[in-house]
């Protein structure tokens, strides 16, 4: 139990830290584009929307920093992240809400697939080291050093444009509107294959290498020799004794590197013009739509935090020592 | 004649979740130069905690540790001179020497730190110390720990401890990780050094046999409490406390076993 208490305390602290960074980000950056925008669109913005924007961006100097901080939190808790300039003053929260599922679908699933495939390949490479399986390491490492966006561009140039196997962009055919029909789901999968494939291929290297090294270390442990001495079939030794222990550090590093990986794969959405949070963030940057950018950064961080929690829960399930020893 | 006294020393560890763990409970003893005391106890008896408190790597929760009557200073020059008087040899020869540095560095550091000899004398002093622990200086001085055997490494550790000319030496299981045939060699070395320098040695071990042969007195420790103390032979040959007796009978003792063939030894 104690283990969960400590972990939740850490997550709350991280969430608070992310929100606080988001609070201070606009404040210490120079320039004040927001009030210029408000001044320009005096008529369009309702007074309370303007007030919300001023709090979000710390524009009302008369309030002390602390008061601004408190009202900032009030806004957050009420789910108001201000108005998006580039999206016709629509509430930022709604804009993000429409894009988030796509990102979770594409980046989330692709990252999990990449982790699972990478770990299995790594286990196999660790198990059969010295054989041709060793060739796996340089290949996957090469793909992991290749920049994501470049791999995406090449994939589009090759598979989509030249071979025409997959559509080059968007999440579904033009004109179609999102609804739960098989045809639409078919489109989504069709559109999503290429970007997902490039994410998996480019992030595979890290997992394969990590798992192989862990397998090599674990296989010299005594309990693996005991399993052999017990005459257990090799497959049982590989899975229940060797891989089961080797996957633990792999899982904890997965949890912690989510920030880096998800951050990187968001660019994939730009290359494939996929309607996720990543593309939204890049468009907002070009359009200097600061409220949307701030909101996006916060939501992305919190989503990664949630993914982190899930990974940690999986770790606790797999490793009994964390449950018992801490309690 | 330096004396180091433990007065009602208690040590409590706060372990998260399971509350306090009493490692030492009102331990009293005196260590004087010129005499070897063996501290015998099984794993978890608290004998290493005593060593850590003696070398000020840890502080006692309550009770006093007095060197020549004065309590151990907290920091500053006085602590430095305390540390110069009380030196320790660790159990694991593989871990007690820094893998990155050469043997020369290990012996020089205490010499320079405590300015035991003027700088130009340091080189000879290092050679002298290595010879005193029966190591051929030229053979080892510029080598790194992993290039030496366990026995050689433990001798380097002893030379390092002797560098600051301490009056008291704490040996925490000095031979338990060494090969059987060289254990007596290292213990004999410690015994000779103890006689030559009139050192006070605290020999910490779980092995009753070596404790008996290499110390004047034996102290038996069980779960942080000194259950028996006395002259080495008395404690082993006719132990007063039940725990000591149990410990002695449990230790392998072929002499008694083969003493009179056919007689079955008492089964308790």
């Amino acid at each position, binding site marked *: 139990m104690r283990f969960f208490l400590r972990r939740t305390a850490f997550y709350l*602290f*991280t969430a608070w*830290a992310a929100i606080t960074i988001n609070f201070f*980000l606009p404040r210490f950056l120079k*320039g004040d584009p927001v009030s210029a925008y408000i001044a320009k669109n005096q008529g369009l913005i309702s007074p309370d929307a303007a007030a919300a924007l001023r709090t979000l961006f710390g524009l009302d100097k008369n309030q002390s920093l602390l008061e601004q901080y408190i009202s900032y939190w009030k806004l957050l808790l009420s789910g108001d992240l201000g108005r998006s300039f580039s999206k016709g003053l629509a509430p930022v929260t709604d804009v993000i809400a429409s894009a988030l599922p796509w990102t979770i679908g594409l980046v989330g699933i692709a990252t999990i697939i990449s982790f699972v495939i990478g770990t299995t390949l790594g286990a196999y490479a660790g*198990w*059969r*080291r010295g*054989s041709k399986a060793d060739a796996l390491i340089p290949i996957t490492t090469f793909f*992991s*050093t290749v*920049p994501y966006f470049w791999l995406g*561009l*090449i994939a589009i*140039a090759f598979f989509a444009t030249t071979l025409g196997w997959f559509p080059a962009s968007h999440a579904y055919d033009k004109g179609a509107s999102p609804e739960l029909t098989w045809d639409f789901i078919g489109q989504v999968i069709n559109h999503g294959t290429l970007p997902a494939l490039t994410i998996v291929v480019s992030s595979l290297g890290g997992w394969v290498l990590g798992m192989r*090294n862990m397998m*090599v270390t674990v*296989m010299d442990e005594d309990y*693996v020799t005991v399993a*052999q001495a017990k005459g257990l079939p090799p*497959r049982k*030794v*590989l899975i229940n004794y060797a891989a089961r222990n080797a996957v633990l550090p792999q899982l904890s590093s997965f949890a912690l590197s989510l*920030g*880096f990986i998800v*951050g990187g794969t*968001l660019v994939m959405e730009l290359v494939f013009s996929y309607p996720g949070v990543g593309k939204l*963030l*890049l468009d907002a*940057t070009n359009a*200097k739509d600061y409220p949307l*950018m*701030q909101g996006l*950064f916060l939501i*992305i*961080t919190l989503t*990664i935090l949630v993914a982190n929690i899930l990974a940690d829960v999986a770790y606790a399930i797999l490793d009994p020592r964390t449950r018992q020893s801490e309690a | 004649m330096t004396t180091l006294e433990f007065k009602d020393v208690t040590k409590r560890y706060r372990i998260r979740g399971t509350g306090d763990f009493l490692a030492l409970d009102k331990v009293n003893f005196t260590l004087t130069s010129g005499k070897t005391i063996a501290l015998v106890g099984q794993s978890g008896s608290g004998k290493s905690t005593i060593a850590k408190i003696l*070398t000020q*790597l840890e502080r006692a929760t309550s009770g006093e540790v007095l060197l020549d009557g004065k309590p151990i200073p907290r920091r500053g020059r006085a*602590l430095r001179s305390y*540390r110069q008087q009380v*030196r320790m040899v*660790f159990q694991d020869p*593989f*871990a007690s*020497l*820094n893998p*990155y540095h050469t043997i020369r560095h290990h012996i020089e*550091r*205490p010499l320079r*730190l405590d300015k035991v000899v003027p700088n130009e004398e340091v080189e000879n002093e290092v050679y002298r110390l290595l010879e005193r622990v029966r190591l051929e200086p*030229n*053979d080892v001085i510029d*080598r790194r720990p992993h*290039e*030496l055997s*366990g*026995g050689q490494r433990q001798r380097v550790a002893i030379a390092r401890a002797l560098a600051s000319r301490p009056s008291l030496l704490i040996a925490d299981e000095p031979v338990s990780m060494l*090969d059987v*045939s060289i254990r007596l060699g290292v213990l004999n070395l410690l015994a000779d050094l103890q006689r030559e320098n009139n050192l006070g040695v605290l020999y910490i071990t779980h092995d009753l046999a070596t404790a008996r042969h290499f110390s004047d007195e034996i102290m038996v420790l069980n779960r942080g409490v000194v259950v028996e103390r006395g002259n080495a032979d008395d404690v082993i040959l006719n132990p007063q406390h039940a725990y000591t007796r149990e410990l002695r009978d449990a230790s392998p003792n072929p002499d008694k076993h083969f003493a009179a063939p056919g007689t079955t030894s008492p089964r308790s």
Partner: protein
Amino acid sequence: MTQPETAVMAAVADPAPRTARKQTPFTKFAQAFSMFRNGKSITGLCILGFFVLVAIFGDLLAPYGPLDKDFSALRQGPSSTHWLGTTHMGEDVLSQLIYGTRGVLVVGFAAGIIATLIAVIIGVTAGYMGGWKSESLSAITNVFLVIPALPLMIIVASQYENPSLLLIAGVLALTGWAWGSRVLRAQTMSLRNRDFVQAARANGEPLYRIIAVEMLPNLIAIIASSFVGTVTAAVLGLTTLAFIGVIPITNLNWGTILFWAQQNGAFPDFWWWYVPAGLCIALLGMALSLINFGIDEYVNPRLRSAGERAREMRKKGIKVTSSVTAVRTTPTSGTQPDDGAASAPRHASPAVDLDAVTPVAPPAPANPDDTTAR
């Protein structure tokens, strides 16, 4: 119970005890960087060296200025005058690549240095101090790990019209130090409890000496590998930022080339415009990973032996994956046929057997008789 018998270990290490060699400052220095003395690191260092040379002598090497326009050769494929062809404005792609190298390396290494400094300070301090100080520093490190690097960079970089190289490096460093700090903290904590550090404390060594002289040399390998890791991340980060267009084109690097290529419809036809830039980034990344592999194998020799030894044994017909010891009785003495693993029936797909390799021991003591009973 380690793999039985340390006799093996003694033989594997150099058998004859070397005569004492003088520890000159040079050997001390060479010893500190002995981690780079293996195949993988050397290849990595050579490729890196090549890029550094290109960065330094860019001006001399490049046939044209990066933005010189040759209007007679718009969108030309590789030719004698333009080895790597030209852009839509007739700029020489090869020259742009050469000049771009400097941008990438300068920012990459600057970010690496800043990030490693932060990682060492926070990681080692957190590792050495115990209790709540260590916990809070570690919590801060983990926060920076959870925060997505690229989005933060995008937001910070986009606030500035013309961000300086140093600022970009700073932002990259700010988002890249956490991983190194975490690894360093773990290693420092394990070192702190080792006997030789306790011995130094017991001998009254001052704190700064304990950290600088006793602990730091043993951390060099980890620091080096976290530096290399951060540089790799910084290079990827920089080129991605440039590709997105968040970093203005004044700071020419391989990412900017790809930005121009993508903006001006280079895909998919003008391959010479976008392929080389991507390959350079990958090659640099590969070189840095090779260096990291070399360091990993130096820190954990078991990894190195795993692959090589297994290959050697396969050549000798020992089935490496066999969980049963091979029997190779020489025909003269043994009656049984030379069987066992070697002639185990080769069915179609050999059962996935447990692969085990005798670990290469830490360099063993000189004479086997005196080895410690572990």
